[in-house]
């Protein structure tokens, strides 16, 4: 078999020893070539963009950005992912259900071989839906605590507590925080589903507001309200949105 390297792989793990060990195990597979190693989430996002690897070995708990946030920000069109994790057994079922493979620490050469077989079979298929996987692996954190946004090479991490409001703009959402705003490629409905409903309210089809940044609601005309936010912005409030606000504020 002419095993010319045809799978390029990136290793993302914050522990140097763990990276070295995984790289060592991968050398046994002649068709896989390690093209880079990253120690944190920011570096991983950049490396995925620049090196365009076929495969990424991805640690979940890392400084800066976690594994899920890296995937959310990465150009992931044809990226195969193998999570490297120490998660418990119950969570592993979640991996199985999402057709993403995983390696448990301590790593085993046999398990790596099996994961690489799966990668070879599925190469180029792209990523499965990650949201429910994230939720299954983080039962203690059902909603986002922060939103990550990438603009070219710059990554912005916005803690949810600082978000004032979110407006829909075609395929994007514009997230206002402090005096700034950031564009993110996501639909407003999908983002709404990831946010804590006790804090974020969809006040009409195109806007979500943070209830803690709401100053007052004014009646402008019949069935037409306006929400005034702490930074002075106003948002139109639909009848359904007004009902949702009233439900939440009691």
């Amino acid at each position, binding site marked *: 078999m002419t095993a010319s390297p045809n799978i390029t792989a990136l290793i993302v793990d914050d522990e140097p020893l763990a990276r070295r060990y995984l790289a060592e195990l991968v050398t046994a597979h002649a068709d896989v070539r390690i093209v880079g190693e990253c120690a944190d989430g920011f570096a991983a996002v950049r490396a995925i963009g620049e090196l365009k690897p076929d495969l990424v070995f991805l640690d979940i708990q890392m400084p800066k950005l976690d594994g899920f946030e890296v995937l959310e920000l990465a150009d992931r069109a044809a990226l195969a992912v193998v999570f490297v994790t120490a998660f418990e057994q119950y969570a592993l079922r979640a991996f199985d259900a999402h057709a993403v493979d995983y390696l448990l*620490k301590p790593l085993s050469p046999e398990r790596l071989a099996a994961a690489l077989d799966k990668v070879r079979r599925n190469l180029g298929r792209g990523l499965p839906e990650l949201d429910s996987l994230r939720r299954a692996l983080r039962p203690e954190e059902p909603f986002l605590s922060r939103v990550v946004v990438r603009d070219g090479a710059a990554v912005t991490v916005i803690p949810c507590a600082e978000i004032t409001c979110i407006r829909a703009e075609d395929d994007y959402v514009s997230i206002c925080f402090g005096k700034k705003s950031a564009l993110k490629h996501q639909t407003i409905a999908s983002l709404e589903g990831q946010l804590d409903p006790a804090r974020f309210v969809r006040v009409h089809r195109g806007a979500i507001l943070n209830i803690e940044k709401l100053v007052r609601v004014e009646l402008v005309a019949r069935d037409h309200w306006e929400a005034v936010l702490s930074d002075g912005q106003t948002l139109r409030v639909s009848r359904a949105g007004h009902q949702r606000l009233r439900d939440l504020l009691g």
Partner: protein
Amino acid sequence: MRRALLDRTLLPYYLAWIPMTALVAVELSGAGRGAGFGVTVGLLFGLPLAAIGAGLRFMCRALPLRRHRLLNTLAAMLAASSLVAGLWTALFALTLRAARPWPAGPTGGLAGTLFLVALAAMVFSLLYHYLVEAAEQVARARRAEDEARVQAGEARLRALAAQVNPHFLYNGLNSVAALIGAEPAAAREMVTRLAEFFRGTTAAGRKEAVPLSDELALVRGYLAIEQVRFGDRLRVVERVDEALLATSWPPLLLQPLVENAVKYGVSGSAEPVTLELVAALEVNYAVLRLRNGFDPEGRPSPGTGTGLVATRERLERFFGPRATLTVEAAAVTAGVGTPAAETAGVGTPGAGTAGAGTFTVTLRVPREDLR
């Protein structure tokens, strides 16, 4: 003896003697003997009787009421009461007769009345003592139960602390697997350290108290294992006053705190993090302080609170309420001086934009409470 007769629980008993003595006085004042006679004799007869009755408490303690020999005990008590009442009445009557204020005429009736009064008083005393005894027994049982519950709670917390985080084991074993090829000597050392750490936590979990030196040895072993894993991202600075090494502490008190510091400080930060461990004698206190850096722009750390609450509880239970645990988190984010609303981290991937945070846990125990 003095203490037994002036026991706080006897106050209602003595108070009850006031109306009883009054009754005797009224009874004796009848039949034309005069109020003066009644009161004098009532007091002379009644007050010593009160003391004798109080003394019966010792008998009650010696012969507690038990179901299987209830009748025997009651019979013995009745006999003893009769004997005491009879002796006192006879002694009183004889003394009085010798002192001649005893009224002329038929006195058998008076002696009989006095005997009955004395007997009733003795029975009352016995009843009172048994009631008090029963109440005390209930209180003692409740105290013992509380004590047992506290002990069980402490044992449970210790067992919990001794339970090594499985991720620590998996990561440690991964380090061993990584080292075994290129650095077999380091791998061997790692295996030994892991074994020592597990042996140490298991042993400590069974003890009520350990010298600080033992706890520090355990923590050092733990940190050495994590340093292999994290490389130069984990730096440890230790400053320990030798005078404290022999003092006793609840076992596995520092270990979970150190584990937290590594988990939330080192794991969450791309830059090297220093963990500072101080054991010092300050003016009136022994102080253990653990300080670690963290990245305030990292993922907010969930659920450190319960561990700290348990540690504070154990500290207070061990040293008393004057021992304290305080927590202090200070964060300086990348944009120094900007308002809080702008703390959102903006960074170029890989550019390392971490602000600096420090998290400090301080345990403070008054010197005189040290063991």
